[in-house]
Each structure stands twice: as C-alpha cells, then as structure tokens.
C-alpha cells in the first residue's frame, strides 16, 4: 500500500473504500481536443423536442412543494439523466468538485498542503507527509480537522468536499483549524472548556499551499540476480546484473517522464532486466500510455483507433527509445485496464514483452473529457481502440502469455520468465 500512499488524502479514499472509480477511470486524448471540430450550430435536440423539457422545468420551479435543490443542481440532474440514455458506463457527467480532483489526479500534481486524510466517526483526521507544507507548519499525525478557512468540516462531509477545500492555487494560504488530543502538548494548555476537552486543544495553522506531486509509479531493485534462473537465490555479488521492478499505478500526465527517470535510475543501480507491474492500474490518459509504450518500443504501432465518424487512426511509437532493447516482462491482472491494456497489448503484439498474470479488465473504449463552462465535465466515449494486431480489447481483455493462479504472487515466475529473455 505504500506505493499507493499518494500525497494527499483524496487519493487514498477511492482505494481504501474500494469504489469502482478507478476501474472506470477513462483515458483522455488531448490530441483529440486540439483538433475538435466546432460544436454543431443546430442543437441535436431541436427546440420543439426541448419544449417539454422547459415546460417540466417551469412547472417544478413554480409549483413544487418542498425544498428544491438549486437550479444548477437540477441542471446537473438533467445532464445525468441525458447521459444515462447513452447506455455506456464510461459516458458520464462529473460535477465541478469531483472534476477538479480527477483533473488533479491525471495531472499528477496540484496545489495542496501534503497530508493524507482519513474519515473517522469523530471527523477527518490528518496525516501530514514528511517535509511537506502541513508537516513543516506543525500539523501532526492524528490531528482532527475542524475547519478549513471558515468552513466547518463535519464527519458527514464527503471526502471530495474536504479535499476540494484544502486544495487551491500554489502559493495561496489555507487556514486549518485542528483539535489535538493528548497530554504531551506543550503550548497554552489553559483550556477551560470542560472535562471532556481537558486533553484536547484546538489550534489554527496558516499553511501556504505548495505544488504537491503524486507519483504514478515507484521502483526498486529486486533481491535476485538477473542472470540466475533460481528465483530464490539472493544476488549478493557486487556489480552483478540485477532486475529492476517498476510498479505503475496510474497513467497521469507525468507518467512518461517518471518512467524515464525510473529506468535511468535503475540502470544506474545495475538493473539490466525489467519487470513492469501494471496490476491494479486502471488506466488514465491515452497520451501517457503512448508515451510510456514509446520508451520501451523502437517504433511500430501502439494502438489503432476507430472513431464515431468511421475514420481509423494508427498511433505509432517513435523510432529509437531509451529502453527499446532492455529485457522486459509485464505483470497484469483483472484490474489492469484501459491505458494499461494499450501498453500491454502493444508490447505483446510487437513481441517486445511477455505478459504474466491474469486476464486483463477489457476496456477498449476512449473517452473525451470535456470541461463545461462551469468546470463540471462530461466524459464521452468517442472511439474504440484495438491492439496493433487488431485484437479487440472490450470486453474480454488481454490474455497473458503466462497465466498464473489467481491470488498467487506472480513475481517469482516473472523473474524466471525474464531470465529466458
């Protein structure tokens, strides 16, 4: 889980709560947006069709007995209803705050204080990260978050809402009011608010937000020699060739650059063979998938995309690459989806790497993420993609070259497989 302990709490929530958010995380293709055709002049839903909609809106506005959500929320309801009719789980609407968090995730960085949060019965508890603004300002692990600026943070508030309040532009200041429980406080313990709070103390911290990066991968050297075929044999000899292990958890904007750093660093430490672990990686940006695949491929097709218009486009890797000839095995599982499947499928079809693990998720559609004028966003399935050998990904996914028993550790086998390369 350390690998997933991203720099701000929001990240941890979907994972810890096991929501489907990540499985549904959709790749975005900024290239498409750059070539967007203008929006149609004529509304696809002609005025006469919309007439009933306006009538319904007006009637509710005028007659409804009870408290109504505000007009914007009702408009969001209408959009959600609209997207439902497309009958596609990847075409959906996100309100501004979830969209902000999604954008932060895919960018791999945001303005924040550098603390994880955890929801408890008492409220949200802070866990500052080492050497980040929150920790430097004096926030301690276990501090209970009471207010962000002037907004109270009750336990029932959604984590999205809490995170959205803490985050903001880099350089701006946010004031966190916390309650610290414990006898070891050494500042102004003159609380007279009663027995229950005798050991609790409320404190305010003004923290300047800094750019917080959320790495999308981590890497290390494995404790085995790359040259031996006995996976149990420890690699003790200094200078012996080693296996570099890269765990990649999301295809963010930063992923290709991070991957480049990881490969270079691991090579410096002696790695000559590599394992790329895409287990649990739900995908992310298509452009990032291409960037990552490109590092391992000496040209050739990465994926083939079919658009709604019927047009087809083949995306190629650039000739020559940092790691084009390094032996590689890719580990996948049933949660490796979307952009993960692009990378795994491209390298498998080009015979560049063998896959080991379990059948992948099987999400072969591409979404455009459009931000609307109020910062909400709509994901629209825009294309289907195929592997270079024109294998269809949805809904069956990729079959690994070596299928392991579900739940078993694929790493030792991956090392053995790598030794054959």
């Amino acid at each position: 889980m350390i690998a997933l302990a991203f720099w701000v709490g929001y990240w941890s929530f979907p994972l810890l709560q096991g929501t489907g958010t990540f499985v549904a995380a959709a790749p975005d293709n900024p290239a498409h947006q750059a070539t967007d055709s203008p929006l149609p002049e004529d509304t696809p839903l002609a005025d006469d069709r919309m007439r009933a909609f306006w009538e319904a809106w007006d009637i509710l506005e005028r007659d409804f007995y009870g408290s109504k959500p505000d007009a914007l929320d009702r408009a969001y309801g209408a959009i959600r209803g609209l997207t439902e009719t497309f009958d596609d789980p990847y075409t959906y609407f996100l309100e501004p705050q979830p969209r902000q968090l999604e954008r932060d995730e895919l960018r791999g960085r945001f303005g924040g204080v550098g603390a994880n949060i955890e929801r408890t019965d008492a409220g949200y508890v802070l866990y500052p990260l080492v050497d980040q603004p929150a920790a430097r300002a004096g926030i301690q692990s276990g501090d209970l978050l009471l207010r962000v600026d002037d907004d109270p943070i009750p336990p029932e508030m959604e984590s999205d809402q809490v995170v959205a309040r803490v985050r903001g532009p880099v350089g701006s200041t946010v004031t966190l009011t916390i309650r610290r429980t414990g006898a070891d406080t050494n500042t102004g313990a003159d609380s007279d608010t009663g027995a229950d709070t005798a050991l609790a103390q409320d404190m305010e911290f003004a923290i300047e937000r800094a750019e917080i990066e959320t790495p999308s991968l981590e890497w290390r050297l494995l404790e085995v020699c790359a040259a031996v075929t006995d996976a149990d044999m420890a690699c003790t000899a200094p200078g012996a060739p080693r296996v570099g292990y890269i765990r990649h958890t999301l295809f963010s904007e930063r992923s290709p650059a991070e991957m480049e750093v990881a490969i270079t660093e691991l090579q410096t430490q002696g790695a000559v063979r590599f394992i790329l672990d895409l287990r649990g990686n739900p995908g992310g940006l298509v452009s990032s998938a291409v960037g990552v695949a490109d590092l391992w491929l000496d040209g050739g097709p990465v994926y083939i995309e079919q658009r709604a218009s019927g047009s087809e486009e083949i995306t190629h890797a650039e000739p020559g690459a940092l790691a084009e000839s390094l032996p590689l095995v890719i580990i996948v599982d049933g949660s490796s989806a979307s952009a993960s499947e692009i990378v795994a499928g491209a390298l498998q079809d080009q015979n560049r790497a063998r896959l080991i693990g379990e059948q992948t998720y099987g999400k072969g559609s591409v979404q455009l993420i459009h931000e609307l004028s109020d910062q909400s966003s709509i994901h629209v399935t825009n294309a289907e993609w195929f592997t270079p050998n024109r294998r269809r990904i949805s809904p069956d996914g990729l079959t690994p070259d070596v299928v392991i028993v579900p739940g078993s550790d694929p790493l030792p086998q991956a090392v053995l497989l790598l030794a054959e390369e």
Partner: protein
Amino acid sequence: MNQEIQSTQPVQGWLNQPRFLLILGLVLMLGAFAAGLGMGFGAGRWSQDTPSLMGRPAAAAPAAECLAEDAEGYGELSPHMPVFQEAVNLLWRDFYGELPAPDAAVYAAIQGIVGTLDDPNTSFMLPVDADFFRTNLEGAFEGIGARVGWDETEDTLLITEPFENQPAWLAGIRRDDLILAVDGESLVGRTVSEAVQLIRGPKGSTVVLTVKRIIPLSDAATSDTATSDTTASAGARNDETAGDGQFPAGETPADDTPADGSSASREQTDLTHEVFDIAVVRDRIEIPTISVDTLGAEGEIAYIRLNTFNENAGQLVREAVSDAATGDARALIFDLRGNSGGLLREAIRVTSVFLEDQTVLLERFSDGTTETYTTVGSAVIGDLPVVVLVNGGSASASEIVAGALQDADRATLIGSTTYGKGSVQLPHTLSDGSIMRVTIARWYTPLDRTIDGIGLQPDVIIERTEEEAADPDADPDADPALDAALDYLGELLAE
C-alpha cells in the same frame, strides 16, 4: 461513480417506483382508476377541472396556461442552461456508438431533474404511460379485473388482488400469482404499464397468461384429491395443450386453493412452484366501488367495504350507512383496507357521513397558504359505534377519512399502520402528451398530525407476524383484523 449516478435515475419514472407500485398496485380496471397514491387528489383536480372546489391555489395555474409560455418565460433557468446545452452538443457530436432517440434523451433529462427533488411522488410520465393514465381516469375499460404490482425479485408482474367474480378470478388467477408472459410475450424486465397494455384488450377476446405459482411443499405433497375438481384448468396447462386452450370465464374450478390442481406436483414431490398457462376472456371491468354485508351472530353489525374513492363513493357510502343506521344494525365496520385513495372531494363526502360541522383535513401549499376543509351536509351514522379497518394499503383519501374519524374520536381504527401518502400531486400535461406530476401540497389531520411518510397508527394494532405469514398451514381466509373488530364491537355492545 457511474453506479451512483444510475441509482439516482429512475429509468421509467413513476411506474418504476417500487413502493408506489407495490402498495398502490395499479390496476387493470376502472375502480382503481385512482391508481391510488399515484394519482391521488391531484388527479381529481385535474380530471374534474374544478379548481375552486379543490381549493387549488391561484399560483398553480392550469396546465394549459403554462404551456402557453414560451422559452422567454424561463429567465430564471437560462443562466444554467448553457451547461446543459453544452453537454447535449458534446454528446451528440462525439459519442461513439448508437445515439439515443432524441425523445428518450429529453425525457431522461426531465427525469434527471425530477430525480434531484428527492420526492417519490413527483414524477414524469412518458406519453405512452400518460395515455394509459388517462384511460384509467376516463373510467371503464376492458381487461381481466385484477390489481397488479411488480415483483422485484422475479422482475415480473405480480397479481396483488384478483377481484372476485371478475375474469381473472373466474379463470383461476389467484393472489400472488406471478405473470411471466402474456400471449407468449415475456414480461420479465419490463414495466407494469407495458404489461398492463399487453393484458388489456377488447371485451370477448382471449388473453393467455403464463402463470408462475409458488406451492408450499406440504400442499404439493397432499394435493392428490384435486384431480376431479380441476379438469377445466388442467386443460390449459402448458404440458397438456399448446397453452391456447379455451378456458372461458365461468368454468373455473370451484375450489380456489392455489395449490390444487397440480397434476405435476404429485409426480415431483420436491416441486415448489409450477408454471402453466391460463386463458382469460376479457370483459368490461366494473369493480364495485362498495360492498355491503351484515356480520355478527345476529347480523347486528353492518359491514361496508369501500374499494376506491371514485366519483360515486360519497353517495354510495351515505346510502349504505343510512340503510344500516335506520335498519337493525347496532354497530358498523367500515373497511378501508387496500383502498389506495381517489378524489379529495369524495374523501370529504365520506367523512361527512360520519361527522358534522367538523374539520376533515388541513392542506398546506408550497406558497405557505393553508386550506381547511370541513364536512358538508349532515351526518347519517347516528350514534352507532364505528370501527374503521385500515392496513398498509390504505392510503391517500383513505387516510384522510380515517384520520378525521380518529381525531374526532368517532371511530376506532383497527388493523395495521396506513401507507402514509399525505401529499397532493397536480398532473400537468406537457405539449407532447407527457405528464409531469408535481407535489404541490401536503395534508394534515384536523389535529395537525402529519400523514405523509408516517401514516396513521391504528388504535388496535393487528398485524400478522412473519411466522404467521409464512405458515403454509394457516387458513388463507383468516382475517384477524376483522375478527378483532367483531370482538371489539361485540364487547362494546354487550356492555
């Protein structure tokens, strides 16, 4: 994320509200035109078009007026509509796959708005459903005469009440039968309104219903005496004919025990359900608004059951109670169980049979105004003691009557907690024939008790426990609430 969104979006609007359906069990016949909770009093206002009588506030303009407004009338909306318009444009420009029909998309958008209101009674009806709704309002139509609901587990149509001596009943359809198919067309995964449209048809025509009936194991094992009784229904079984057997109304087995007549059950003792076809000849359905009986050892207790608050309800109850009060009756049981409501006007008239110069209900509107409704005319009950029987199916108008009588201490309520439908919907017909039903008011009993979402608590609670309900040996004709009412009145009269 996506699941969350889906869960807040009823795909089909009002007909898919399970609670709504189960309780008010829409209907294959006129009597239930009230479709109870659903239509409620708003329907009355709408169909009667008598706003002053119904006390509709000036703010609630007739539907026709709001239709006259054009887009310029929606100034308050416009600041937000760019967002909606952008979404529409992007979806239609970029989507890979089959585009939804524009009508369906617009309706889904409307339902999306309705979904944000968090009010199960405010709903939107597609034109096809709205047609059905209007047909019901208009009165008699042809069908099989059964109240239906939707079984969520089997995802198909459920017979909640076949009306006695109506075609479905006569053909052997019984309560809790699941209807899997109509004329061979599967109902699984469809909606009540679709199912009902398939079942309805011209008088004299035949519809074949594929019935799934659960059989208690003990019954299945002991039903070997059934053969001679059930030749008629056996003729319609799947396994013996093509399922198109003529089985006209009237040739029904005399024995109505559900498990009887299963020849298959004798061959397979582990059988827990059977599936068979029943052919029903459609007829013009006229459900009696009211039924009258005399109970008690010496017929001293008058029994009046009101099935719905339709246009004649007030007058019929008045006549029946008047007959009882001037006859030999010494007490009255007024049965509102399963009565899902109807017209507000009739609720007031029915209450006025029992009360005089008293408040019937308070109605509060979205603009803050309150309307107080009082009884009309003179009561005819005299001083007969009254028990009102209620249950979870007593809703809307039934709750107004029961609540008024309870608050005035004029009747003892016996049974189980009522449904809790204390809000008023106004159905607006939109320009394309769809209907938007909007909650515009809530009502309260004369003592200002809330009905909506709570229901009325009977003075004497008689509820079947789960064990009793599940007991296959229990007498299906047992009516503990009625027994309690008879006991209660018997003791009262003995004093």
